[in-house]
Each structure stands twice: as C-alpha cells, then as structure tokens.
C-alpha cells in the first residue's frame, strides 16, 4: 500500500509540474461557470439549486477528462520510462491505481474549487445543501468513470492524440446511450428489455438521479463498476504489451 502512496505522490506532483492540472482546473472552472450561467440560466430559473451547473458536467467531462487521462500511460511508453517503472519493485496494479487516484484527486480538486457557485446560491436563497453535496459526489464518481476509460485508452497506445480521440469516442457512447436520440432508434422494434439495458449503460441516466440528490447505491455502484472494469482492462493491456 505504501508503494501506491509513493507512486500517487509522484503522479500528483507531476500533474502540477507539467501545468496539466492548472490548465484543466482553470478551463473546467471557466466552462462550468459559463454553461451554468449563460446556457443553463442559473439566475433566470429563479431556483436556489445547482441543477443548471451539474447538468453540463457529463458534456464537460466528455472532452476534458480524456485530455487529462491521455498522458498517463502514453507518455510512459513514449519516453521509455515505463521500462524504469516496471522494473522497480512494484506491481503493475499499484502503478495503475496510483495513476488513477492521482488524476481523480485533481478532478476532485477542480470540483471543490467550484465552491463560489455554492456560496452564491446559498447567498441568494435557501438551497437544500444535502442535494448539492449528493450531486457533487455523483459528479466526482462520474468523472472517475470517464477517467478510467481515458486511462485504459492511454494504456493502449504511445500516441496521446490517438488515446484522446479513442477515449472521447468511447465516453461519448457511454454518455449518449441514455439519450432520446439513441433510444428512439431502438424504440420501434427492440423489446423493452434491450432499451432498458442500453439506457442503463448511460452515464446520463445514473447521474441525473444523483444530481437531484438521490444517492442510490446502484448509481454509485454503477460508476464504481465501470471504473474498475476499465482499469482492469487497462491493467491487462499494459501487462500484455508494455514493450510495444
């Protein structure tokens, strides 16, 4: 476990040494603010909640998280430092967990730094802070699922651009599978079971419930499951083709 901690510290520091973390946090704060106020109409809605803010998170994460995840393994491959890392007395899963947690913490930090919005709605009205907390937690777990997909794609290639594009595509599939556009295609001919299954794969469906303040075990469980599955897939990929 201490190995994970040491690796985690290194990864976390590296996010701030290369300005990836600063850029990510700055862009995330700006865009989430812009979307919440101008597109979501945070003021105009006249309600003391942050729904307008949280609604856009899946779409923000869709591009920002893959951009952050793309370097995790690709860069190790490209620079050859993967050979150094894998010949240290650690196991591959420790490196994987450390890389994931480091990036997840940066995502969490970005979320925490949106607190002025929370202060704003509390100043303007009396929101249900329990709901807001639940939405924050849900958003963080969803970001973790996006991140795991990005890390897995990064494990596949030494080219960061390819890793980025692949993870955006896969993330996009996970996001839209619950939207009406996709479900309409199936509606006319597929049985309900199929439609429900497709819809249940969607990040949107699971996040929607949480952004309204319902932390159901199956929603959190869903995001955890997605995260673990993709990390495990990434682990297998790294073990199989670390030298390519």
């Amino acid at each position, binding site marked *: 476990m201490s190995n994970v901690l*040491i690796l985690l510290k290194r990864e976390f*520091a*590296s996010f701030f040494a290369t300005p990836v973390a600063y850029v990510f946090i700055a862009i995330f704060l700006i865009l989430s603010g812009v979307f919440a106020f101008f597109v979501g109409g945070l003021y105009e809605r006249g309600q003391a909640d942050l729904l307008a803010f949280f609604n856009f998170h899946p779409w923000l994460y869709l591009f920002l998280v893959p951009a952050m995840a793309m370097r995790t393994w690709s860069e190790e491959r490209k620079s050859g430092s*993967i*050979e150094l890392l894998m*010949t*240290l007395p*650690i196991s591959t899963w420790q490196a994987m967990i450390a890389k994931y947690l480091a990036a997840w913490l940066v995502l969490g930090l970005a979320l925490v730094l949106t607190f002025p919005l929370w202060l704003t709605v509390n100043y303007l009205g009396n929101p249900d802070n329990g709901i807001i907390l639940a939405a924050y937690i849900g958003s963080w777990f969803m970001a973790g699922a996006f991140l795991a997909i990005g890390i897995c794609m990064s494990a596949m290639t030494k080219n960061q651009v390819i890793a980025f594009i692949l993870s955006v595509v896969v993330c996009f599939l996970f996001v839209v599978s619950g939207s009406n556009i996709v479900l309409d295609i199936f509606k006319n001919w597929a049985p309900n079971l199929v439609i429900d299954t497709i819809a249940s794969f969607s990040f949107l469906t699971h996040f929607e419930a949480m952004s309204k303040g319902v932390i159901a075990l199956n929603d959190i469980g869903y995001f955890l499951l997605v995260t673990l599955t993709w990390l495990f897939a990434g682990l297998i990929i790294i073990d199989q083709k*670390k030298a390519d």
Partner: protein
Amino acid sequence: MISVKNLYKSFGDVMAVDDLSFEIKPGDVVGFLGPNGAGKSTTMKMLTGFLPQSSGEISIFDMSLSQHPIAIKKRIGYLPEGAPAYGDMTTLQFLNFIAQIRDYSGKEKQERIQDVIEKVELQDVLDKPIENLSKGFKRRVGLAQALLHDPQILILDEPTDGLDPNQKHQVRQLIQNLAKDKIVIISTHILEEVSAVCNRVMIIANGKLMFNGTPEELNRKSRYYGAITLRFSYKADTSELEELEGVAGMEVNPENGDITLFAEPDKQILHLVTALIQRCKLPVDSLMIEQGRLDEVFRDITQMEKAE
C-alpha cells in the same frame, strides 16, 4: 547468481532471442556484445523482468523470475537503454522517489541519496528538471537511480553511450570499484570497453550466444594474437623474416610498409625475430607485439552465421 536456460523470445515471426543458456556468478563483470538488433537489449529486458520470455527459464538467486518478480527486482539495479527518467522531476526529486520506492526512509534515505550523488557527481544539477539536462547528465541520473540501493545485480544497457571520453572513463572506474561480489552486466558496442572493465564476454548475434569466455580468450581468437608488427625506417629486404622457424606467415601493410609476422600456434617467435634484426641490421623503427584485434574477431564471430 543468474541462471538462464533455453531462453527464447519471439516478436511475431522474428526470433529475437534464440535458445540462450548461460550462468553468471557473483564477481562476474559481463560484457554483452553484439551488433544492433542482436537481442542484447531484449535479453536484458527479460533478465530485469520487464519482458516475459516466450519460453525458457530465468532464475536469479535460485528464485524463478516469473514466480518472485518483486523479490528479485529489489535486488537488481537497471539502467534501461537511453536512460529514461521522469523529465518533469528534478534530479533530487527523482532520486528521492526512487529511494522511497526502494523502501528507504529517514536518515538512511538521505545517506543513500547523498552517497550516490557523490559517486556519479550530480551535485551541480540537483535542482534542475531532468528533461533540461544534457545527454551525459541524463545518463548519470540513470546510473544513480540504478546504483542507489547498492544492488547485488547491476544491469546496464549501454551505460557509456553519449558520454564524452572523460565521463566514459568515470563510468568504467565506477563499475570497477563496485564490490567484487556483485554481478554486473553491461551491453555495449565499444570493444575496448570490454577489455577495460569486464572479466567475461558474451557475444550475441541474431539472438544466439556465439561466444562466452574471458576477454583474454576472445583476444586469442584473433589471428593477430601474439603476432609481431615491425615498422621500418626505409625499405629493406625482409624475405628472411618470413623464412624464420615458427613463422606461419607474413603480411605487408601496403600503406606504410609495416610487416606483421604470424607465429605458428604455441610458438614463441620474438627472440628469433629480434636476433635476426640484429644479425641483418634491419632498419627497424618500432616493434610491437599484437594483443589481438577485437574488431576483427567481433566481425568474424557475428558474421559467421550469415556466411553459412
């Protein structure tokens, strides 16, 4: 002790390592020689547990590498080809990270880091990001990382590549000064390096082990080993030299007129040659006993396969 039995590694159709078997004992400083693409790096990557072998068995200190990878990795120091490191870290941060992951903490960690910084002379670049360092310093950071835990096995893939002659000398000195009960494996293209630091040579070509012995034995393989080369101040009649007893042949260098005399196997010809020079008053400027020409032996050994 490292013991390798029938090691194979293939990448698709290409056989990178083809039936390697050898043993290396503590105290051995092994020079891994071979042309580019011969399988040196692949072999080293398998020894360090980075690449899995296609088949065959590697055991280190009587433990199977595939079953106890972490216990073995703890005892190996490895400098991968090109000395990769985390470029965004400073030298000190990087060494600190390596020391932590190697289970050092507190005072002992500081001592280890300090010790290795002095050994490879990194004092001037401690606070510089590694990506901004020159090639020579990067290589030294890589060496420092490999030496930090004073490993029993040190595997260095082209440790002197890209270093200037002074730095090369330093690295060789460093390797020679390591405790005598360690295993050191270095790969190199530079033949002199082998005679300078190694007490054992392995030559690999096309994934096969072509030679395994001491540098002395390698020298002996040269037809120049023990031959005598003479340089004359002006052209003289040298036909008598070739007829001396024990001289197997003579070669004249067309460029400068140097004459090389080859001895028959196990014959000493030096005293006969010097006697003849005195008797005939040959105008000899210099006389040199050849130690064998490694580059020639290397070519012979590594190209044997192709010729067949």
